[in-house]
């Protein structure tokens, strides 16, 4: 059983790596700073480590999907991220792709289940 857990952990890590990007992009039509994003995603059931999120934000910014701005007016300076124009387009396309994947996988998994019942 612990063996299965280990495999699951590894596979889940790979699976999350891609989905987190979608989650992040989905929340950034309004400007957010890193930690507010951690909280926001957490509330919606997507748990992401700050140590993963912060480098990811920076990478997305470098790729041109996000714009950023430092806000120095608050008690502590914070870097806010926001979808760029390209980022917005990419996100919309990504959502379509994601829905396709979900539909296909549902189909595949569902079919297997049906066959299982048939054998009984």
């Amino acid at each position, binding site marked *: 059983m612990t063996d299965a857990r280990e495999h699951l952990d590894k596979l889940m890590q790979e699976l999350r790596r891609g989905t987190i990007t979608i989650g992040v992009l989905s929340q950034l039509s309004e400007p957010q700073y*890193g930690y507010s994003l951690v909280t926001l995603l957490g509330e919606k059931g997507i748990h992401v480590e*700050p140590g993963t999120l*912060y*480098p990811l934000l920076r990478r997305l910014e470098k790729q041109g999907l996000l714009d950023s701005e430092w806000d120095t007016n608050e008690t*502590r300076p914070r870097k806010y991220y926001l979808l760029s124009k390209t980022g917005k387009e990419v996100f919309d396309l990504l959502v379509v792709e994601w829905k396709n994947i979900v539909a296909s996988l549902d189909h595949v998994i569902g079919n297997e289940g049906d066959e299982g019942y048939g054998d009984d």
Partner: protein
Amino acid sequence: MEMIERYIYAVTQKLPQAQRKDIADELRGLIEDMLEERTGGYPRKESEVEAVLLELGNPRELAEKYRGSKRYLIGPELFDSYMLILKIVLVVVAASEGISFIVQSILEPFAILDYFIDFIVSLVIGLPMAFGWTTFGFAMGELAGGIKQKDLLGKEWNPSDLPPIPDEKRRIKRSEPIVGITFYAIVLVFLAFSSEYIGVWVFKNGFTGVVPFLNEDTYGKYLLLIFLVFGFGIIKECLKLVSGKWTYKLAINTTIVNVVSMVAILFMINGPEFWNPTFMSELVNAGVVEAGTEAYDVVAKIWEQTTFWMLILLLIGLVWDAVDGFRRARKK
């Protein structure tokens, strides 16, 4: 909070200079936010700071995530060839030094301590030098490969782009460049560290000395050129080893390397001070030939013409090497 700053430093010092300040500021904000959530405001305890830092994880891993891709001086594609050549070069350098030490000690056993010190010194100089140049060569190769890959990224790949399996005759056996590298390295080591032994060895009731071919006084000046010539030779053999088959590109590259070597050799050998200017009189002094005899004239003539014939031989060798490369590249 000292520990926070230490953490931030540990992360950012492993990142490119240009990003450090920005990432440090952002991390500081993050840690403050995390602490605030944990304590709900002041006062904070050292243990809580530690808990937050533990949550963020090992700074080395965090820095790695910020860097994204790993960076190489010599990437995994070239690494095996690099290790192979590095081993050859280091073994050859160490072995040739050892051999020349043994030969010197046999010829002049009374000076064995001096020779031993020379041996150690030349090892200390020679091994890092061999290591450095080999690594430098491969790093340059890696750099060139990286640039080329970037060029090719945009182009679409076609199955018809697959290179044909090279014909037996175009294939370069691994042993060929390895022997070449070994040869160049051995000659280079002897030229660099034992040049005084290149000449006519005089034996009269045992070994009495060497009449050198080369001019000891000016030799140091030429050493750089010698390194250049043999270094290029080694680069040429490395190109062959990495390529594994004769192609026009490889043939062109070896030709370029050969031309550069040729220019350097011409420059050296044509310089009046390259050869030992008192070679003939030293031979007479050593009692090998007697002045005024026919033998003397013959030896003198041979000595004078050496430069000319060496040039011709080298030219033929290098041209042949280049022509042979093209000939073998053409074979389908």
